């Protein structure tokens, strides 16, 4: 399988006693499972790849191209990050789904695909009433699923999800993972990075590799 993303010695000093240094790759059609104890730097790793924080060293390549040759806004759509506590903006659920498509970088390339929206909502049990509600009144689980739908509609090349199933019951967890796997398989050239503590998650994912981030000083 072809490599989509490759990171070599990607380094970040988290605190004077702990540095993150990781190497690995994300392959087409596969999920890279990121595992490790709390505070080991899993979220930092995703934030590094999203170029939200600068690394202290290392190199990243997307299909052989140095990541710094790609403008940051374009990169963040291609390698899209959904944080553990997704940000829900004021307005309705629908407003939240439209926000990315109002941005110039996104607007120039794509518009919201309503067929896909309907499909993802159905697959993740988000009703039209939920979408029409004030987003601030959504439960943690509904908010998480809304954020996953928003991310999928952006059609990134690599989707990075930080514990997307943390607030969900086991049935809904399975649905989210099924949607993710289906999204990976629908079109070539897609990959995903998933931070998860759950053993259950691994059972639902057919093709994955594991990146183990250790606690303590790895530098």
């Amino acid at each position: 399988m072809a490599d989509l993303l490759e990171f070599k010695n990607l380094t970040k000093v988290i605190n004077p006693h702990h540095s993150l240094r990781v190497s690995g790759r994300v392959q087409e059609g596969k999920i890279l499972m990121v595992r490790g104890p709390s505070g080991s730097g899993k979220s930092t790793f995703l934030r590094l790849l999203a170029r939200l924080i600068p690394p202290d060293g290392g190199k990243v390549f997307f299909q052989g191209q140095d990541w710094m040759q790609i403008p940051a806004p374009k990169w963040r759509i291609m390698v899209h990050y959904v944080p553990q506590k997704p940000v829900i903006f004021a307005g309705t659920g629908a407003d939240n789904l439209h926000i990315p498509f109002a941005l110039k970088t996104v607007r120039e390339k794509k518009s919201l695909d309503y067929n896909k929206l309907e499909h993802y909502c159905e697959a993740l049990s988000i009703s039209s009433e939920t979408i029409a509600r004030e987003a601030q009144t959504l439960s943690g689980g509904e908010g998480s699923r809304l954020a996953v739908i928003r991310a999928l509609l952006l059609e990134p090349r690599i989707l990075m999800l930080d514990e997307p199933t943390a607030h969900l019951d086991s049935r809904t967890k399975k649905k989210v993972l099924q949607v993710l796997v289906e999204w990976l398989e629908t079109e070539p050239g897609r990959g995903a990075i998933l931070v998860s503590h759950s053993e259950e998650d691994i059972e639902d994912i057919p093709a994955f590799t594991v990146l183990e981030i250790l606690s303590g000083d790895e530098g």
Partner: protein
Amino acid sequence: MDYSYIPISNSQLAFSVGLVLLAGMVSAFLKLGLLPSLFWGTCRAFLQLTLIGYVLAYLFIINHFLLLLPIILLMCYIAAREAGKRITKSPHNPTFISFIALSSSTFLVGTIVVVLIISPSPWYTAQVLIPIFGMILGNSMNGIALSLDRMYSEVYGKADQIEALLTFGATPWEAVRDLVKNAVAAGMTPTINSLMVVGLVSLPGMMTGQILAGMDPQMAVRYQFVVMIMIAAAVALGCFMIVAFSFKKLFTGDMALKETVRKN
């Protein structure tokens, strides 16, 4: 009708100081401990105003642009330093950026008003230039301080939202655009409010001064209108400029929020 001003004699001026005693009595009665400040404030106001009276009289006589220019720049610097002190949430010293915003907006709007509207001869007549630029600076100083402080408050409080927008592919400007709008509006609100109530709730200081100095009230009103519109334009421009200059400093060269901003 013949308009003329009524002079204030030295004894009348001394008598006005008696009014401070009234404020002093309130302070003493309520044990506010403000007597030293009140005394010092009165002395300073008297000395500063007397001094500026002599300076202005000298400038009006000399009336040379090369003398006026450094004085106006000094006024801009003092206003920028004062605005900088009021901007409490800035991660860096905002004096320089305040100076650029204040001097640009003041020179642009002030020059339009002096050259195109009031049109004295010569155009740099100190009697017109100094008060006009001074009034613009005094009001813009408050506006830009309010705007920048509001921008930092909003950015610190909504760092997660800004980062979320960045992950959607927003440019730094797109990520903070709404917050910047709120900040500019916050800086302009006092000016807009004063436009709404002028003549109804209060008579502005400049107009009152001109009327007391013997000017026809109709003419004083015209001057006041021009001054208020000029202040509104300068405040809007100054507020916009300071947030436009400052928002970029919130981001790294790679269009991410600086860690110092996120952790604030």
